[in-house]
């Protein structure tokens, strides 16, 4: 009967509540960054081995005991753990990410080089996943039970496929056999196609399942029937009503999806030999390059926080029923 009483009194666009929302997001973000920095700091010390060894060129180096001690003193590794921890937090808070052990250049400089390619890869992956999911959803709702079953099967298979396997198959088919696309990532647009598709396909299957359900519900709803009774065509019902309803869960999941794309980038960048955060993270962990690992993790976490906030904002803009909470 009296549905959504609360929304009757909703007052959109109250400046105070928008500021409060932003403040809440910023506070949450800072907490996440602190938690990541702390987890990295202690976590990386659990890996066996001596960081000073890493500074001096890795386990293979024949550094003398004096040289190792000097490196420890230079990087503060001889201090008590809590001094190191708070010193690290303070440096991070003031924006000093330190110098990479293995590359011997400031971490901020490394990140400035590596962040853009990864963001481009993940962003394109999300976009392509969205397009594929929507196309699948539309096809399956428009083409009866058989089309729906086929689309549903495709979605389940693609969302279950692991990135490394998918990447190998795509390289074998499109590079080795057909020769259409380069097997390693190059700076040309063609070089981006396979990495992006590898990242996008599993996500598209996942998003597609959620969107198809919502879209089918919207197609059967009373408001869709009302629109048809006003003379709306099937395409019109889809574009003006159902598509928007289907997009809602997709928007809500996009923040999470972007996070999964960042972790997927570790695998994809390594396989396609593409420069980026993911591949550097892998080599930095192997080399026990603490500042670089910390920097990459913090920047990834920061990107994740921003994307989550954007997806939350997008959800609010797309669905007027969600008030400022």
């Amino acid at each position, binding site marked *: *009967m*009296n*549905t*959504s*009483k*609360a*929304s*009757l*009194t*909703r007052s959109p666009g109250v400046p105070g509540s928008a500021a409060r929302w932003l403040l809440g997001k910023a506070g949450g973000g800072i907490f996440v960054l602190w938690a990541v920095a702390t987890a990295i700091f202690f976590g990386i010390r659990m890996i066996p081995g001596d960081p000073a060894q890493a500074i001096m060129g890795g386990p293979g180096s024949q550094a003398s005991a004096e040289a190792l001690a000097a490196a420890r003193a230079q990087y503060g590794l001889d201090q008590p753990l809590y001094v190191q921890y708070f010193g690290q937090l303070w440096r991070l808070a003031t924006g000093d990410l330190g110098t990479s052990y293995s590359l011997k250049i400031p971490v901020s400089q490394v990140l400035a080089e590596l962040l853009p390619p990864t963001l481009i890869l993940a962003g394109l992956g999300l976009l392509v996943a969205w397009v594929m999911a929507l196309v699948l959803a539309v096809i399956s709702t428009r083409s009866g039970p058989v089309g729906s079953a086929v689309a549903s099967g495709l979605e389940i298979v693609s969302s279950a496929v692991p990135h490394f396997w998918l990447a190998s198959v795509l390289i074998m088919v499109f590079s080795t056999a057909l020769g259409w696309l380069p097997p390693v990532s190059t700076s040309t647009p063609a070089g981006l196609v396979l990495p992006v598709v590898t990242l996008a396909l599993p996500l598209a299957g996942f998003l597609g399942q959620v969107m198809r359900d919502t879209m089918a519900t919207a197609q059967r*709803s*009373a*408001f869709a*029937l*009302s*629109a*048809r*009774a*006003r*003379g*709306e*065509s*099937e395409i*019109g019902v889809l574009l*003006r*009503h159902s598509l*928007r*309803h289907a997009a809602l869960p997709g928007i809500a999941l996009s923040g999470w999806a972007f996070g999964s794309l960042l972790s997927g980038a570790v695998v994809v960048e390594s396989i396609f030999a593409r420069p980026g955060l993911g591949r550097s993270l892998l080599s930095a962990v192997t080399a026990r390059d603490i500042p670089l690992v910390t920097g990459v993790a913090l920047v990834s976490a920061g990107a994740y926080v921003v994307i989550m906030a954007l997806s939350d904002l997008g959800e609010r803009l*797309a*669905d*007027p*029923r969600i008030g400022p909470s």
Partner: protein
Amino acid sequence: MNAVVPLLRVEDLDVSFGGTSVVRGVSFTVSPGECLAVVGESGSGKSVTAKSLLGLAGPGSLVRTTTLDVAGVDARNLSQRGWRALRGKQVGFILQDALTSLDPLRTVGKEIDDALRLHSSGSGSQRAARVIELLEAVGLDDPVRRASQRSGELSGGMRQRALIAAAIALDPVLIVADEPTTALDATIAASVMSLLGDLRATGSGMLLISHDLAAVASVADSIAVMQAGQIVERGTRDQILQNPQHPYTRSLLAAVPAGKPRFTRLSPTGDAGMDGVASVARPARTQPPATAPAPDVLPVLRARGLYKSFPMAKSAALPAVRGVGFELLPGHTLGVVGESGSGKTTTARMVLELVTPDAGDVELFGEPWSTVSEAGRRSRRSSLGAIYQDPLSSFDPRLSTSSLLADALSFGATRNPRKYTTEVAELLAMVGLEPGVAMRNPATLSGGQRQRLAIARALAPKPRVLICDEPVSALDVSVQAQILDLLDDLQQRLGLSYLFISHDLSVIRHMSDDVLVMRAGEVLESGKTESVFSDPQHHYTRSLLASAPSLPGSHRAQEGP
């Protein structure tokens, strides 16, 4: 040229879904300025008939007809494009379920504008002006603001008005309205009906679909009664209402509670066939409990000065319930009538002590009830039962009927029905359900059967007081009649007292000995039902009475000045 070309002519309409025939041989015509009402209970095929007229019977349907002329167009083999030209432009369709028929993500203005845009009527600014004009025409205040709001920000009545605005945007020659007032409060329903009556006066033809003869009586010129996919009787409104021929029409008329005194039977005796229910032996009618109870009779339930506010609700500038008090005498029914948001349900919850009052107290059988601890109440909880509007959502979906009843019979100790076979059978018989229902899942039962089961469960712990919160609001008039009769029977047989809550004045008037009229959390008026309704003191009670649908043929005391 003919004297009158009908706007709508249907002959021999058959609709089936996957081989199951739901409409058989239906024929009717609607002339300009005429209003034809098609009346029947749910499942009679009336909604499918209406949708078939616009080619919207839905996927999997097979529609056959010898004649289908809609607004001068032969619609038998129409293309999708042809249908779209008719929909909205020639025929305005007001669908069932006003609450969900607007897209919650789009503004009301856009939804109405769609009708104009789709039939390319005017420029953007012309259309915007027309939208405002339409919202004003259907009686919405502040139309400019309404146009920018979404359905979630509008009440049920406003949503229905906005839908009507969209349906009449292009001045269609024919309006089809499917249950336009179901789920609306009585005063709002009355104003929507009078709005539809005004539209007809402009010369449009109208096809009105309803389960309630009383609801259509004020606007229909002629009535067709549908049962099981066929029209069983048709005639002018006065013929049908005053001199019904078919037994089904008579049962529909008898089911309308308006103007039927207390304890008048509403459903046919031995109601087998109406709801697939075995007839139950009914005790001889006895007189209602003494009209003037002896002064020493102790009320079973007494509430004094109940207050409750919900600080979480942003709209709660006023408490949900303010200073409500009443007495319920043994074997009596106290009716509580008011529109949604009047505080009826909150009052019921305080009586059940599901919500603790902020102030005031409730006494049960003369002993403190709301002021003692839950441990002090527990042993007495079995004397207080409750039934609700939506019984299915109050049943655990994993339990069969007999497990539900075993759960209630054992006070929650076991759900194993084997120990309670006799008791379960007795309860089912008491509420007129067949023994076979015991093994079924409640989700497979009809609406009437579910409410019977809810009553059986409420009766399991042998309560003396039953709180009935809108128990018939979701039911068709004919099923409602059976449930009301059942409640009457049980009251007489078991000496139950009812606190009966409803927004429907006719139901309250038929069921209650005493009545409380509530609005905005307050009791406006209370007293003996007949004295309150024959001589209402408060203007709100008078407006409720004026808007309650009634059958013109039935004679009842005057409806106030």
